[in-house]
């Protein structure tokens, strides 16, 4: 199938067969739950509970601070044990609320809400914010901020990102297959903010069942359509997807709204729906627990705060000795040296690899493969070299600051050089210095 798509990209093995036919099943945590106060981009949430206090499932335990921030809710009922710094996926220690699960799952009384259509748009936004909804594809940008664009009439596309271009990951796919009507309802809510926008459900062409399910679900929806794109990494990257859908290119400093687009992850749209239809906050998400090292890879609905260490057991335990754990997909995921970190709003999966490939880099042969696949049309080999020499000026001149960090260059490099991490490292240090 030929589709409009961006130039570049790579075709890693999909490896979705481990879990693509496994229905989403709820997993109830066994150990303590840990809620980092920063699971999003922006200001750290402020605790509103004290150690020793009993909290209920769905109860607010930390409120948002400032405009760009998101609150945190308890995902089980139990006693707040402490508020202390805990290790997170990023490898950093972040102040977290630790809750001891009492196993009762006593729900915090949900706020009585009528049909969402009767609410003012501002009130809808407030509810989305109060439910703690953030971008659940990985970025963690607070959704209420994303939706509060200056000029809603300029938004032409609301894109639900169901491309899930990372290998192994199938959480979004299962959501689309199992709850297409929820997704459509969530999209309808978002479209309510943007009167001129069309809702686009964007998928890759390898997700046939999801395409069928969604096409069926949008049959009666004049403002929505399903668009299918080539299965290619990083099709799901925001800037790439916007280009595939609208033909507009944005640079790293622009927002999707500048191209008249709003891009939301599948899981996020489901969370929006839950906030406005059921009046429940975000306390659970789909997590793909997969990899060759596991006996029974699964798609689980995991309560936020659950330790990753519990998940392999839930997936039948190990069939082979695990060599490496990755939070998220193998392309852009984070290696976890210690599994005892909590599942947060942005955790898409746990990948248990039975092999740890140690890539020994050799000299660059200037083959240009990296330039060939770079979706941003950069020269990764050159940029990585400049980064290693700390040549800021040239790095910026060669558009190093535009790097997506998708890792396609490292993936194809025949000399096995760690190009993307080098470029991202330089980029981040320049951003931290406030240079662009």
């Amino acid at each position, binding site marked *: 199938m030929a589709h409009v798509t961006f130039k570049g990209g*790579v075709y890693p*093995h999909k490896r979705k067969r481990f879990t693509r036919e496994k229905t989403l099943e709820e997993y109830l945590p066994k150990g303590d739950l840990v809620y980092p106060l920063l699971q999003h981009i922006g200001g750290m949430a402020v605790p509103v509970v004290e150690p020793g206090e009993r909290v209920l499932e769905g109860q607010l335990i930390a409120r948002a601070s400032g405009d760009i921030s998101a609150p945190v809710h308890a995902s089980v009922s139990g006693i707040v044990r402490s508020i202390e710094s805990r290790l997170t996926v990023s490898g950093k220690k972040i102040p977290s609320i630790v809750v001891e699960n009492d196993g009762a799952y006593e729900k915090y009384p949900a706020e009585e809400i009528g049909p969402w259509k009767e609410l003012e748009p501002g009130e809808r936004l407030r509810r989305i914010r109060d439910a703690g909804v953030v971008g659940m594809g990985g970025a963690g940008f607070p959704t209420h901020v994303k939706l509060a664009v200056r000029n809603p009439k300029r938004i032409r596309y609301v894109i639900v990102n169901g491309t899930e271009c990372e290998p192994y990951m199938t959480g979004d796919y299962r959501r689309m297959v199992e709850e297409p009507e929820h997704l459509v309802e969530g999209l309808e809510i978002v479209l309510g903010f943007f009167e001129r926008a069309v809702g686009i459900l964007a998928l890759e062409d390898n997700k046939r069942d999801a395409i069928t399910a969604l096409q069926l679900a949008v049959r009666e929806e004049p403002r929505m359509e399903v668009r299918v794109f080539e299965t290619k990494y990083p099709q799901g990257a925001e800037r790439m997807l916007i280009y595939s859908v609208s033909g507009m290119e*944005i640079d790293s400093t622009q927002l999707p709204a500048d191209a008249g687009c709003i891009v939301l992850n599948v899981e996020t749209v489901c969370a929006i729906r839950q906030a406005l239809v059921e009046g429940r906050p975000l306390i659970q998400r789909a997590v793909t627990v997969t990899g060759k090292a596991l006996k029974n890879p699964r798609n689980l609905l995991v309560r936020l705060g659950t330790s990753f260490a519990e998940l392999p057991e839930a997936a039948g335990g190990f069939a082979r000795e*695990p060599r490496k754990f990755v939070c998220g997909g193998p392309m852009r995921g984070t*290696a976890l040296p210690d599994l005892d970190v909590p599942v947060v709003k942005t955790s898409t999966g746990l990948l248990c690899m039975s092999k740890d490939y140690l890539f020994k880099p050799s000299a660059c042969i200037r*083959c240009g493969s990296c330039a*060939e696949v770079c979706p*941003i049309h950069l020269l990764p080999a050159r940029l990585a070299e400049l980064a290693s020499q700390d040549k800021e000026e040239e790095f910026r001149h060669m558009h190093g600051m*535009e790097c997506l960090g998708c890792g396609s260059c490292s*993936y194809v490099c025949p000399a096995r050089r760690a190009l993307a991490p080098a470029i991202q490292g330089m980029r981040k240090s320049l951003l931290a210095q406030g240079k662009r």
Partner: protein
Amino acid sequence: MGEKKYAWTFPHVKGTMSTANLMRMVLAALLPAAVFGVFHFGPEALAHMLVCVVTCMLTEFVFEAFADRPLAVTDCSAAVTGLLLALMLPVGAPLWLGIIGSVFAVAVVKMAFGGIGKNRLNPALCGYCLLLWLFSDIMRDYSFGDFGAETLLGQLLQGETVDPLPMILGNTNGGIGQTSSLAILAGALLLLAFGVIRLRIPAAAAVSFVLTLFLFGGRGFDQLWLTTQICGGGFLLGIWFMAVDCVTSPINRQGQVLYGLLIGVLAAALRLRGIEEAIVYAILVGNMAVPLIEKITVPRAFGQRRLVKVHNDKNSGTA
């Protein structure tokens, strides 16, 4: 799992292509020309290839072992250099000639500059050039069997009209692997099929070569003449196997096109001046121009407006 070594950085999976694989694919793509050379010129051709390949690999090995560098000789890049050099030699040359060329190519042109990836010039071509300058009598003596010292291209450059058919099939004299255009093109197809090279450089070179000959050759669109120019000498082997050498060609798309065009124009100009080894010099000059080419062809980044010339803090603002 505490002390296990982790590959920390993303991505956690990698493609299957490696430097060694690339080089093996190039070797495989050179096989048609090499096999035809042996078939056509006899066992001496094979001896030349073996001598050059072994010398190149040994030289690199010795260099790496003594300079205490990581052993990269197993990536077979030296074998490619050796085979390419052998394919350019006349079959009647003594075997020690290949040894001199190989040692120079690997030790001076490649390793002295820092090994694979660091050399600015194509080692095989430099080796060939050295031999051509030091031993021009031997290197220009293509006599073999019933054929004289002069190649068809030589006759062509002297203004004679030659039959392109022997050049295409390979039933003529010349460098060991250069006589059969068909064998070289078969190898080129393999390179393209393996994904080792892209069409840009050879296509740009061929187009600008033909165009320059057409405009300045004084023969107009003389198809026979143009065909013999393309098929004669080392032009095809040069554009398909040496101009595309990734180490010594530009890394970006536009740069590659520009580089190809430059090589084609230079090769045509030198041919019109009557120089038989035009393509060799054209590619070497192209190699030297690579840093400049790369400087003037920094690609436009996705999402950047085209007018960004000096990238400074000013133009980071949003639309």
